């Protein structure tokens, strides 16, 4: 496998312009999802889905007292995307092998293989992938696999005007992210990384699209301690075998014990 590539999304640089959403839709030629004003601040996209692969969240956090910047709120914005987990729940759950890990370490769904069983959908601890009912198949961010073949960076990273979305080799991004967090802490901002490696997020093995957050993960609709479902699947299988054994025991037992 060649170098692992990924995203580092620094939410302290995000200005909520949604260029990432539009660039993604335009490059991938995704359809719109309908026109509804949600009232959820400026988030009319709501969630990632089969035809939304970048989603900017907007959280107006009330500030009380006399905040230093003179405002009554802090507006936290983040461009959400498929996390391309090191240990991907969707990949492990896919029964057809449609979901694979590419040479760049990204997680990719092959649309010509997917038969729409929908099992990847609940397997994602972040609720990223979705099945489109019109089409039947599951879809999600491809990390612009086609652009990577042409040595181009993904459309969202290219379009992001403030470089909130940074793309590159994962270890480089991690180093950059660590320096950035340190810098922000010195400035007095309570920032932290999310999913930067397997140590920080053992449940997923680390994310290839990780984040720098300025608030609790829940504020951005991110789970605080996500884990790939197969984490702990062993005991479940054991229970299945035990249950099967129990069924057999019940069967044999009923028959044998009923004999005179």
């Amino acid at each position, binding site marked *: 496998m060649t170098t692992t590539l990924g995203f580092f999304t620094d939410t302290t640089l995000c200005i909520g312009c949604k260029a990432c959403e539009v660039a993604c839709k335009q490059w991938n030629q995704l*359809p719109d999802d309908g026109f509804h004003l949600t009232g959820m601040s400026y988030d009319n996209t709501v969630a990632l889905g089969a035809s939304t692969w970048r989603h900017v969240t907007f959280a107006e956090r009330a500030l009380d007292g006399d905040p230093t910047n003179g405002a009554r709120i802090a507006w936290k914005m983040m461009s959400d995307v498929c996390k391309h987990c090191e240990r991907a729940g969707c990949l492990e759950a896919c029964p057809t092998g449609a979901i694979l890990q590419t040479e760049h370490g990204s997680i990719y769904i092959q649309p010509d293989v997917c038969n729409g069983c929908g099992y990847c959908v609940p397997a994602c601890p972040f609720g990223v992938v979705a099945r489109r*009912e019109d089409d039947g198949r599951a879809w999600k961010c491809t990390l*612009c696999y086609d652009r990577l073949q042409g040595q181009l960076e993904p459309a969202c990273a290219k379009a992001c005007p403030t470089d909130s979305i940074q793309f590159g080799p994962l270890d480089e991004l991690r180093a950059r992210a660590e320096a950035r967090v340190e810098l922000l802490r010195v400035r007095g901002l309570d920032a932290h990384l999310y999913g930067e490696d397997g140590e920080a997020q053992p*449940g997923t093995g680390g994310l290839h699209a990780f984040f720098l957050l300025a608030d609790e993960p829940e504020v951005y609709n991110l789970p605080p301690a996500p884990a790939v479902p197969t984490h702990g699947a062993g005991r479940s299988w054991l229970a299945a075998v035990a249950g099967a054994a129990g069924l057999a025991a019940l069967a044999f037992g009923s028959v044998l014990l009923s004999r005179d």
Partner: protein
Amino acid sequence: MRRPTPPTPDDGRNLDVAVALQLGEGAQQRVDTPESAWPVPPEAAPTPGEVPSETYYDLPVVKAPPWRWYIPAYFYAGGVAGAAATLGGALELVATTRPELRLAHRLHWISMLGEAAGAALLIADLGRPARFHHMLRVIRPTSPMNVGTWILSTAGATSGLSALARLRGRRPPGLVLAANVVAGSLLSTYTGVLVGNTAVPIWKVTRRRLPLWFAATSAAALGSLLQLSGGATRATRVYTAAAKVAELVGAHAIERAAREVAIDAPLREGHAGRLWRSSRWLGVASLVTTLLPWGGRTRDVIAGALGTASSVLARFAIHEAGKASAADPRATFDPQRRGAIT
């Protein structure tokens, strides 16, 4: 090079037919109405302008599986089929009397019917049913659905082979029978792993009890079916009674596991709660009726009907509970905050 997909009008892409090549990754998505991908009901009232400090506008974090009624129906059909294969196989292996053998054969028919119906239901639920055979492209132990497909295929294949043998008047080979028993028994329990191997909070937290509960409820479902169809023997009566007790114990265990992390609301409230509670009461009624010392055939039919209803509702209940649990962001956030779910 991929051939461009011809653009359709009003597909939400606004591409000019004259100059646009639809070669994007999402260009292949078939779009009947763009609206259909909208993630929440449009009439959902917006929450006040501020984000509640605990969640993101009460929006779901994880997604429920997009399964339709076919899947809970499959849980029933497949569960019954598996239990029937197990009991039938056990009977056949140790059969000494003709009635036992006849019962075994009947069970094998139930098993085959259940497997066929199950397969049909699974295929019907697929987004691309014509590609059902893609399930067998790989053997992926991490995917309970893949393992389950192999289990179902094995169970079906061995059932078919056994049926062929019997049609020719011969006893199926022991290996085939044994394989059928193993596959069948796993057929009834792997669904618990399938359901538990997701990010849906209530399923994830009960993942060690679900397979056991599935086993018990499959046996109970089979027992109820036998009660309805008649021809009960002592063995089946013992089997049925024990299974129904096990089912109630299992259901209780599931509730407790969910309650321990305070995410058991779907089993108590709402549509899923109603289904679950109905299922449990029907199950109790069925058990009580089963244990009545008198009543004969009438008692059996009533008990069987109550039990079947209970078993069917139980599948739909656990499915609905999963949907409700996935839709509740607190069910994902709170246990993780407390370190309760790993």
